[in-house]
């Protein structure tokens, strides 16, 4: 088996990779890392896999990658024969913009969740305010997309931009960030959950 995912079930970032692996129908081995309370991702052994001590990490053959966003790019680039998940035409830059947004501003939602659920010490008011600001940016974008009759962040089909942005928006309630003010995002999340090959994770309801 060529692919090994260093994984923690409750991690929204790991879930990004699990989503694409399932959409692409790829077989892989899962190495469970005891993120909490064991902090195994900060162990000496794991730091040799990812010197940043973060999850997910992915081994593909001799290649070792970290960063969920980079892993999504690698998997789509290498294995998606349809070209749907990572279009190489004029849509490429836009897809990458939203993929980076998912690894950037949207991670405020992950921070709020780590604070509320796992007791991480951080400025929770700032995390929530910044998460709402990020959700508002995507809400404005998806509002425009709805007016244009489109369902996905870029183009006419889901891309890794949708996969990258989905988890920490769907899980934002875990950090006290509700969806009451985001009608376009609610519709987009439902459409995403209805995709063939979609699977949920703890914190995201099974029933759409």
């Amino acid at each position: 088996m060529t692919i090994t995912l260093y994984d923690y079930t409750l991690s929204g970032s790991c879930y990004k990779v699990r989503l694409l692996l399932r959409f692409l129908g790829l077989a892989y081995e899962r190495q469970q890392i005891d993120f909490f309370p064991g902090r195994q991702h900060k162990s000496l052994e794991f730091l040799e896999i990812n010197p940043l001590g973060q999850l997910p990490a992915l081994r593909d053959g001799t290649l070792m990658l970290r960063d969920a966003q980079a892993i999504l790019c690698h998997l789509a680039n290498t294995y998606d024969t349809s070209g749907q998940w990572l279009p190489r035409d004029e849509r490429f830059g836009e897809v990458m913009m939203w993929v980076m947004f998912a690894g950037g501003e949207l991670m405020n939602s992950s921070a709020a969740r780590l604070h509320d659920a796992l007791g991480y010490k951080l400025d929770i008011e700032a995390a929530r305010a910044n998460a709402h600001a990020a959700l508002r940016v995507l809400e404005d974008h998806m509002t425009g997309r709805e007016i244009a009759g489109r369902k996905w962040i870029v183009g006419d089909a889901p891309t890794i931009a949708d996969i990258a942005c989905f988890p920490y928006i769907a899980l934002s309630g875990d950090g006290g960030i509700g969806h009451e003010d985001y009608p376009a995002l609610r519709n987009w999340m439902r459409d995403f959950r209805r995709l063939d090959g979609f699977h949920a994770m703890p914190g995201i309801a099974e029933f759409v």
Partner: protein
Amino acid sequence: MGIEHNQWRGIGLDRQVQPASSNPVIVNGEMLAMWRGENGPVRVWEDRCPHRGMRLSFGFVRGDSLRCIYHGWAYRTDGQCVEIPAHPDLTPPKTICAASYPAETRYGIVWTNLERAAPSPLPDLGPEDGWEPVRSLYVNGSAAQVEAAIEAFDFGAPSMVRLKHANAIALGIGVELELLIALQPVADNRIGLHVVARGASTPETRASLARRLQRLRTEIEMAQEKK
């Protein structure tokens, strides 16, 4: 606080409420579930399953029933519970009923009234037909600030207020464009705006309006920050 109970408030755009969906909205701190079946109009219920208090806005829709996500209790459109999966052979007692609020869809907007018993009729706010959804947006500001900002806003052509109601403003913009903006008081300093338009027939015009309304939101919130 002086907020009248018996008032119709816009809470969403009809065409934006997906078939077979349940959605959370808040009016003056009251939590509501705005939902629709696979077919049919939008309904507005108290966001609380009478079993163990789980929010029905997290529920899922099958056919014309809303199911609570916790134990799968199914409610039909009049609020009556019709199935309890833990007891498949039980006909649920009539006492098990979701609490509903008056709901009306008019001008392309979904309206509700927190006065269950005898709501006064929805006021006339313009022609019945021809309204297209523009967008919803949520702003940090008071109703007074939002109304003042709307009246002073540069929509790109000379605009004037046609009609002002407790929770809605109708504007004429330029020669052909009409906007109807319904105001949803969420909490003390948070207002939802639901905007529909007549005479904005192309998606490009509506998209341009939708973007312009972001600037309205920014103006209101920047004025807040200065205080």
